[in-house]
Structure formats: structure tokens, C-alpha cells
């Protein structure tokens, strides 16, 4: 009855799930593509209003965290539990820093009266409203995925700590790592779409 020994199968299931997540964001990217086509100027102007420094910083943080997650899997395979825990904690911390940055970024924009249905946006040009509307929806949904990913990392940390994840069975850790890479990957697309439009 148990299929737990079949790691390939578990990985197939996880990849299929990740695929559905990509399509989920794909729907939003379709919206982005159409509206970018409709309002290229406003999108470009909107992109310049975002803080590229924080954006780049967040990108680097996520890339580093992906690296530490991958390293933590290697660590557990070599049975170095302590190193694995350390790397997982580092990844978790990166996720937290990312969210804190996002919090300040959003807060800054909201303070400037740029938030969904705000008078500035509804009274301003249509393209600007759509740009920031999509900005909040996409980065918001991505933020939600960061939180889910951090929960998975935290769970993996606990299981490694309790020796439920070991050098021989680390499917949960591996799948959490895959999920975290997905969160990272989506950000790699979100970042240029919003921060780096010419």
C-alpha cells in the first residue's frame, strides 16, 4: 500500500504539482502581456516608480536562499545534520528578509496613495491603475507562496531536527526545496516584468 520507497514517483507527483503552480501564475502573465500591449507607456512609467534597489536586493536574497536550500539537501544526503539545519535556517531567514522588504515596499507605495481602488489610481491614467493593480495581485500572490514555502522549510527543519528526515529518506525536504526553487523562479520572471521595463 505504501509507495514511499519510490522516490521517482514522489518526484513526478511534485513536478506535476509545480507545473500547476506555473500555470496559475501563467494566467496572470497572460493578463500582464495583454495590458502591456495596451498600455506600454504607462507600464514603463509605472516601472520607474518602483524601487529597483530593493527589487534587486530581494532577487539576490532569493537566489542565495535557493542555493542554501539546494546545499541543505546535499548536506542531509551526506548525513551532516547540523549543516543541514544551519542551511535551512539560513533559507528561512532569507525568506523572512524578503517579506520584510516587501512590507516596506508596499507600505511606501500605500503611503503615496497607490493601492487598489485608491483615489490616485482610479482618477489617474488607466494604464497606471492596471499596472499597479497587477503589481499588487502578482507580488501579493507571490508573497503568499513565499509564506507557504517558508512553512514547508520550517516543517522540514523540525523533521530534520527530530530525525524524521534522514540521509535515507528526505523526500519532504527535497520537495520543499523544489517548491522553494519554484517561488524563486517565479520571482525571476516577476522582477524584470515590473522593475526593469524600459
Amino acid at each position, binding site marked *: 500500500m505504501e509507495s514511499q520507497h519510490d522516490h521517482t*514517483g514522489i518526484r*513526478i507527483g511534485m513536478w506535476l*504539482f509545480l507545473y500547476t503552480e506555473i500555470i496559475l501564475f*501563467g*494566467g496572470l502573465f497572460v493578463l500582464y502581456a495583454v495590458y502591456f500591449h495596451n498600455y506600454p507607456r504607462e507600464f514603463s512609467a509605472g516601472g520607474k516608480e518602483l524601487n529597483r534597489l530593493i527589487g534587486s536586493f530581494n532577487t539576490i536574497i532569493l537566489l542565495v536562499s535557493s542555493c542554501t536550500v539546494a546545499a541543505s539537501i546535499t548536506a542531509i544526503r551526506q548525513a551532516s545534520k547540523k549543516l543541514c539545519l544551519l542551511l535551512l535556517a539560513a533559507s528561512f531567514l532569507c525568506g523572512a528578509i524578503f517579506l520584510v522588504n516587501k512590507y516596506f515596499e508596499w507600505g511606501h507605495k500605500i503611503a503615496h496613495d497607490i493601492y487598489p481602488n485608491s483615489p490616485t489610481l482610479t482618477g489617474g491614467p*488607466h*494604464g497606471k*491603475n*492596471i499596472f499597479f493593480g497587477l503589481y499588487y495581485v502578482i507580488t501579493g500572490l507571490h508573497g503568499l507562496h513565499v509564506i507557504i514555502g517558508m512553512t514547508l522549510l520550517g516543517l522540514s527543519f523540525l523533521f530534520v531536527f527530530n530525525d524524521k528526515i534522514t540521509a535515507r529518506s528526505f523526500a519532504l525536504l527535497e520537495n520543499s526545496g523544489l517548491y522553494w526553487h519554484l517561488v524563486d523562479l517565479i520571482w525571476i520572471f516577476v522582477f524584470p516584468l515590473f522593475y526593469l521595463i524600459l
Partner: protein
Amino acid sequence: MAFSPQKKSFAIKDPTISMTTTPSFYETPSPPELVGIKAWLLTHDHKRLGLMYLWAILFWFVIGLTIGLLIRVELMTIGRTIMSAAVYNSAFTLHGVIMIFLFVIPVIPAIFGNFFLPIQLGTDDVFFPRLNLLSWYLYMFGGLLAILSLFTAGGFPDTGWTFYVPFSIGTKHNVPLTVFAAFILGMSSMLTGLNFITTVHRKRSPAMGWMQIPLFTWSLYATAWVQLLATPVISITLLLVIIERFFNIGLFDPDKGGDPILYQHLFWMYSHPAVYVMILPGMGVISEIIPTFSRKAIFGYRAIVFSSMGIAIAGSLVWAHHMFVSGMSDTAVFVFSLLTFLVAIPSAIKVFSWVSTLYKASIEMTPPLLYALVFIYLFSVGGLTGLVLGAAGPDIHVHDTHFVVAHFHFTMFGGTGFAFFAALHYWWPKMFGVMYDFRRAYIAATLATVGFMFHYVPMFILGLKGMPRRSYDFLPQFSQGNGLAAVGGILLFSGIILMLINLMLSFRKNRIIAAANPWGGCTLEWTIPSPPPLHNFTKEPHIKEYPYDFSDIPDSPQKT
């Protein structure tokens, strides 16, 4: 006790299958420490989950059916018949939401797929048994939310099951909760698809090659891919409706720079492939039943397999044929119309294969076969009228009329619905180990079919004459057709209720015990006891070179 001799013979135990004393899965909970109701609610057994889906889905089916009947009774006469216009709007939305999200999408994969996919693959369970249980809970939770939305914050939506913007954003009815229910149900269906794909790849008996997989399982495999491909699109679309309701961003609001047509694109990107999620498993059921009662290998096994995959791929590229009048470039209309015509080809290949299997076959009439034959007829009518709608010219004439309603119900109800009835009658003895009464089953099938024709054929004519769909009232020239449709609806309803009662009566005290292989079927589920034991197979299953090889199946008891 007046059993017909024919029926009795189906209950004779097949001597070729050793009826060992292996207890059935009803007597062996899994995990083994569970007892009583927990043995069901916490089970990992795919068979128990299949049955739990069966009862939940039947519940929703009867509710959806009753609401459908009430809608037709309302339309029996001009003006108010039994309900107000506001209730009518909520009623057709409720009918659509229940029938689409809680009945047609899950019905065959969740019930029969869960029960028979692992058995047909020669294995003991799906790949992720616990995920399977989670899917069931998501399904129940989604259903519960749908019920809740009836009685909270403005009542059930009056938008129609498509939730088109801007109305779905503006209406005072409880759209967010209903949409969230659909979101949860989508997750349930997606996870089931994920589970099936992994199971087919990783848990298939090592002796079974790709061209040895039974066609029902093949159709589920194709369906599962569509579920994975398309469902996330509806998830994000429904989430956007909720976000719009709460934050008013205006992504689909022209006053704020949005485009309502985009909503329709996103919605149909999922919802058109979803009709193939609904019909493909039904086609799989028919591909099992036709060869079994023809006592003959299915015609064009490979053609059916490839047409399933063909439908899955081509069906994902035709969504905008729902939007010919919404505003689109002529080039786009041409391309989508052409693709729509192309998707009819694989469906036609299947119909030809079934009919060719029947040709010069030694046909044995049984209730499942009768339902399957009705399916072929009704589905063909539904498919051909679909071409009328897929052609850009005529579509403008019949768009949003009763013609669409009739076409849709011919494929989804006459198609998937009757395939579901066929599957119920085909696998009932295997699932429960009891046989039902044939005579009542035939009467019910005939009643339902005749009712079906009287119900939906007038709608084709009403539609051609211009009666709009979803409309509460109608002009005097439409009264004859609507009156007929109401009478047909009552016949149809009574036929289906009789069918369900007949199936329930098979559980009464003087029940007829079903044989392990009452029909002389040749796929793996017929080589094991009825009902199956916990791990499905007591000894290593023998995988046939060709899944529809009847040469070593004894003639069915009837003819000996």
C-alpha cells in the same frame, strides 16, 4: 420471488474464478486499526474512497436534477408558474454550478476512476493514497461551502455558472463564497488528476506495456492531463473575481482600464478543456462496455487511445469558440472555428470504432449495453449540433439561445450522464457484489431516453426560432415547445429516479449475489472476486498481450 431466468443466469458463479475465502475490502479496513465510521472517513483504500465519492456525488446529482426539473416546470407556461424571476436566476445558476463542478467533472474519474483505475493497472492502490483522501475532503468542503453560500450574504449568485464580469463583480448576491467553493472543487479535481498520472506511470503492473492498458484507464490518463493543464487557469480566474470583489482593482472593468473580454478568455481557457474532462472518461466507459457485450475485441484500440490524447490536446486550443459574438478579430474567429471542426475528428473516430465493434458481433443485450447504445446516439446528436455552433456563421444566429442549451445537454447529460448510468450498471455487481433487477433497469432506461428526447429536441427548435437561454419568460409562439419540454422533463426525471430506486433495491434482504465475472468481461477487474479484497489481487495478476482478447473468457453463462 419472480426473477427472470436471464437475470438469474448472470448471478451464477463463474467456476473459472476460484472463490477463495479472501475477505472483501468491506471487511478489511485500511489502515487496519480503524473501526466503524473511522474506517471510512480516514481510509486510504481507493475502493472505499470511490464509494464515498459515489454517495456524495449521487446526493448532489439528485439535488441538481430536482432544480433542473423545477426550472423546466417554471418554463412550462408563460409568466410565473412556480417561482419568481429572482429565484429563477439563482435556480439556473445553482443547477449549473452543482451539475458542472459537483457532478459532471468529478463523477466518472472520482467514483469509477478511483475504484477501477488501480485494478485495471494490476496494482493495489493509487500512488498517493493519503492525497486521495485529501481530495475527497476538498470535494466535501467545496460542496459544504456551496451550501453555505445559499444562505449567507445575499444568497446564491444569479450570474449563471460562468460568473461573467462585470455582473459577477456588481451583483449583491454571494458570489465570493460560491466562487471560492468552485476553486476548492477545482483543487480536488486537480489532485485526483495528479494522482492518476503518477499511478499510471509508477504503479502500473510491470508486465503491462502502454498498449496493454485498458481503454477506460487510458481515457482517465488523458483526462488527468487536461485537469492538470487547465484547472489552474480557472483557479486564478476565480481568485481574480474574489480579489475584484474585495479590492475593486478594475482588472476587468473598462472604467478603470480593464477588459471584460479577457475574463471570458481566461474562463474558457479552462472551461472548454473542462468539457473534455467531462466527456473523455464517459467515452472510456463506453469503450469498455461495447466490446464486453459484443464478445469481440474492440475495433481500433490504438485509434481510440490516440484519439483520447488528440482530444486532450486539440480540445485545449478551441476555447474562443464560446466568444464569437463577444468581439474578436475575424482571423481569430476563423482559426478557432477551424480548430473546433478539427476536434470533432477524434470524437468521430471513437464513435466509428464503437459501431464497428458492434458490427457482426455476438451482441448480448444488458442494461449497461442499453445505456451505452443510448449514449452513442445522444452523444452523436450532441456532437453534430456542436458543429453548427462551431461554425462562425450559424453560431451568430443561435448564440445564447436554447439551441446551445440543448446541444450542451445532449453531450453532457446524454453523453457523460448516460455513460455514468452505464458505468453504474456495468460495475455495480463488482463494487457491491449484488445484482439489480434487469426489467426495471430496462424500463427506467427507456423512460429516461424517451423523456430526454421530448425534453431537449424541442429546445433545438426553440433555439433556432430564437428563444434566448436563461430567460424567465417567453413569447406565445414558444409555448408549445416549452410545454413539451416540461412533459419530457418529468418523464426523464421519473426514469432516472426509477433507475436509482432499482439500484437501491439490489441491497434488500433477498439480494442476488453477483458472480465475479457476471458479464464475461476480460479486463483485470473481472478476474478478482466481487467485491474485491483489500489489496485487489490475491495472486499476481495475469496481464494479457492485448487487453481485449476474449479467447480465454468462457462464453457467458447465458448461452451455455
